């Protein structure tokens, strides 16, 4: 009888557990087995870093400049376009073409303003990086319409295994108009070919009046993106409102819900929607309450750090640390703080040497070393 009772209790517990969308993992523990080493100092906001084959670093400065850091020498790259500096917008991400070594294409995201319309929007361009200059500059995509809002430019870039370029544009502070409408830009993840043309098998390619480059929609402001080294999938994190930052695996043509579904509320504390899920919307793989304001996203595939392999890293702009997220069967099982109180982390990347590098606003770029 006792045994039967236990079985019922256990079954009940399992039921209770599985009926929750997510167990709250609010405890964020402090990592101790590492050191932060300053690679180079910079007083600006380094929004993105990329690595050359020789391990030297190319870095964007949000206010509108691009630098090459090599062996302690900082060289400014010439030939950038006009950049619209407004709120969260400016010069944002960079990505090397997977065949950069041969073709020299560098991809950039930035906010731009054009004649006629007030304000700006996220723009994707490419140029050949030859020595210290950008040449053959061409705009591949420009979000419309322009807006004087300072919010939610998105701006992350990532290539997948088939050389498609993915990028994000946030909802541009117009959540009730942009994210759920596929004939408008904003609140989307996009997919284009490396020359800026649009793949015929994009999900809305044949939809009337649609923006053909859209790959998924219903996003708020995705600023972290990586290609999963094992599955090849594109993973993103995005800023939620108050609470409700999300991790998502990007699937073709899917609606990620914003603002029809969210785990967050308005900054003022009022409700956005009661719906945490709806039919035909994707649930996040994970949501943060409270928000950490994720700036960046990376997967650790390196063997350099004992126990860190296979976990994820996200910059927590709100709390000034880098968060390491441990997954088991695509569920978050623990969260860890790295580099507490160093400053606002903007980008995090695993370098070609297997070490993790992180850019901290107004401080520079740090390398994370495992403690011996």
């Amino acid at each position, binding site marked *: 009888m006792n045994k039967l009772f236990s079985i019922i209790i256990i079954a009940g517990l399992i039921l209770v557990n599985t009926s929750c969308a997510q167990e709250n993992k609010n405890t964020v523990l402090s990592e101790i087995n590492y050191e932060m080493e300053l690679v180079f100092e910079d*007083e600006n*906001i380094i929004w993105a870093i990329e690595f050359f084959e020789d391990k030297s670093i190319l870095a964007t400065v*949000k*206010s509108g400049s691009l630098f090459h850091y090599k062996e302690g020498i900082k060289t400014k790259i010439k030939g950038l376009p006009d950049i*619209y*500096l*407004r*709120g969260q*917008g*400016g010069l944002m991400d960079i990505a090397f073409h997977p065949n950069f070594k041969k073709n020299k294409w560098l991809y950039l995201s930035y906010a731009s303003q054009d004649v006629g319309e007030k304000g700006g929007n996220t723009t994707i361009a490419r140029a050949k990086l030859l020595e210290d200059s950008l040449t053959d500059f061409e705009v591949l995509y420009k979000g419309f319409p322009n807006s004087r*809002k*300072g*919010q939610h430019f998105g701006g992350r870039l990532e290539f997948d295994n088939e050389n498609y370029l993915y990028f994000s544009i946030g909802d541009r*502070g117009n959540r009730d108009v942009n994210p759920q409408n596929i004939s408008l830009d904003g609140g989307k993840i996009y997919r284009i070919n490396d020359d800026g043309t649009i793949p015929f098998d994009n999900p809305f390619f044949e939809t009337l009046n649609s923006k053909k480059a859209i790959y998924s929609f219903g996003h708020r402001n995705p600023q972290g993106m990586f290609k999963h080294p094992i599955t090849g999938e594109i993973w993103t994190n995005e800023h939620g409102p108050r609470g409700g930052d999300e991790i998502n695996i990007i699937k073709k043509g899917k609606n990620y819900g914003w603002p029809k579904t969210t785990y967050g509320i308005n*900054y*003022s*504390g009022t409700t956005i929607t009661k719906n945490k899920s709806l039919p035909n919307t994707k649930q996040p793989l994970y949501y943060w309450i409270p928000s950490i*304001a994720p700036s960046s996203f990376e997967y650790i595939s390196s063997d350099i750090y004992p126990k860190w392999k296979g976990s994820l890293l996200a910059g927590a702009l*709100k*709390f*000034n640390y880098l968060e390491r997220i441990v997954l088991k069967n695509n569920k978050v099982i623990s969260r860890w703080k790295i580099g507490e109180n160093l*400053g*606002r982390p903007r980008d995090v990347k695993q370098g070609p040497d297997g070490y993790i590098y992180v850019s901290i*606003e*107004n401080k520079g770029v740090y390398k994370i070393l495992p403690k011996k």
Partner: protein
Amino acid sequence: MKFINIIFFIIPFFIFSQNESLSVSMKNGKSLYEDFCLRCHMPNGKGIEGIYPPLAKSDFLFKYMEESIKAIKFGGIDGEITVNGIKYNSKMEKMGLYDDEIADIMNYTLNSWGNKHEAMIMEDYVRSLKK
């Protein structure tokens, strides 16, 4: 007598229009604050202790007002500051705001969350400030 009448007529009108333009400026300032400032300084102006300084009942803001306006216009204050007894050392970025927008944000900030400031901040004043 006529002269006095005119003065009596003009003074209330002047005060009224100043109040009215302050409330218009504060209204614009509120929506700009929500767009450009709230994410760090928080909806209640209290910031995050040790990371983003408070604007609500901030001793620094009122003591170093010109410096604070320059911080919005040119992007941050270099070095450590102490606000209400707590140290802060993260640099605010330049937001790309126009001078009239900065004036509006100041008027909203200086008259919200228990703050009170008699004189209105004008666009011309913001424009006159040099780095």
